[in-house]
């Protein structure tokens, strides 16, 4: 009887603790990340980053190179749990939308930072790739997502002011 109680407490308690951890800690992490993303988006807003495949007419380009911005974000247990339930019924996996949104925007911000730090002035042909990192446990679960943003950084004869 006491054993059965103990097992019941473990069976309910551990997932519940993980859910609470995911909801509160994961939620706080997400809010902080969004604040950081918005702040840096504002800071690097004026750096041109477009997905034109060619150099815009009139630009005099002295140098060009491939630059990469990459991020991996993990899923908390709360999101993973809800996504699992959602998989049963179908429909929009709303809890993963913010995850993807953060990853895309973080990758783009990093791409811009990389461009500036290496002394380039603008980005063209910006592309994005997403991949899912499988978890160690048999590779079935989702450990996190990776977003890679890449583009061609240009050094201009007359840098924008």
């Amino acid at each position, binding site marked *: *009887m*006491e054993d*059965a*109680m103990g097992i*019941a407490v473990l*069976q*309910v308690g551990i*997932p519940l603790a993980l859910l609470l951890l995911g*909801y509160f800690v994961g*939620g706080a992490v997400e809010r902080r990340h969004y604040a950081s993303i*918005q702040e840096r*988006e*504002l800071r690097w*807003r*004026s750096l*041109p980053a*477009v997905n*034109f495949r*060619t150099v*815009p*007419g*009139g*630009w*005099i380009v002295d140098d060009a190179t491939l630059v990469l911005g990459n991020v991996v974000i993990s899923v908390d*247990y*709360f*999101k*993973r*749990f*809800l996504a*699992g*339930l*959602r*998989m*049963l*019924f179908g429909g*929009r996996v*709303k*809890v993963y*939308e*913010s995850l*993807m*949104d953060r990853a895309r*925007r973080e990758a783009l911000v990093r791409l811009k930072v990389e461009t500036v730090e290496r002394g380039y002035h*603008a980005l063209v042909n910006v592309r994005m790739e997403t991949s899912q990192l499988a978890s160690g446990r048999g590779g*079935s*679960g989702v450990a996190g997502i990776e977003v890679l943003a890449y583009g061609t950084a240009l050094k201009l004869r*007359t840098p*924008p002011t």
Partner: protein
Amino acid sequence: MHSFGVPSWRDHDLTFDPSLPTEGINVSRVHPLREALILVFGVIGVTVATVASIGFVVDWVAPSIPPKYEVYLFSDWFEAEEPAAAPKPRAEALRAVLDRVSVHWPDSEYRFRVQIWDQAEPNALALPGGTIAVTEGLLDAVTSENELAFVLGHELGHFHNRDHLRGLGRGVGMSLVLFAVGIGGGGGAAQLAAIAGQLTQRGFDRDQESAADEFGLGLVAAEYGHTAGASDLFEHLRATSDASALASYLSTHPLHGDRVIRLEAVARAAGWPLTGERSALGSKLEAPSDPSSETEPAADPVSTE
């Protein structure tokens, strides 16, 4: 607005003054707890409905399966049981009480056997196939033949109601449901479904226990002409055990207190006298007088599985 005809920055056809991303377009503005509530209750609802449907179908089908087939189905389950450690006279006396009770279920297709297990916890089990196992601890705890007869009658009730078969059927159904949920929604969804499913199963388990109680009480009333003593064991155990409210809710068997009240209600409804003289156990069944062999009653005295 920009003109995108020929991209040209230096010519000022294309200005770089991009706005910031708009929040709430790529991310749905739904509170995650709202999403969680909808999904969790959805999964619980589907699981409870499925497990309960399987339970009702199993309860409907089980009585039409002959006991012979049930014995065959479970034949290799309990072969490795410990042999009866009790001295023969005690087993024979137990057998005699069982015969006295089971004679009131004349159309039984089972061939009943008894086993005494050398365990201090008072417990009795109906093993699939027709064997009733009783622990030494239970034999030490009972104080009258009526008390023991009801315990045996309850186990006979499990055979009468085909509870092993129904339990097996529900277990298989539950496994299938959890397997499907696990495939569809992963480990977390399966855990949630397991909790919802187990709580649903408990409803069936409790009904099963109540039905076995009613059957056992009927046998006791038929043999002794009254139901006095039937619930004595639960009164003893209630006085010593301190099962918390949660423990009793999660336990397979109804609360001892509830059980006593229920038994009285059943007897009253059937018109069986509640009082009468309790029959003595007889020297072969009585607990040894050695005080060192006193037992501590467990919280869960009578189980079927």
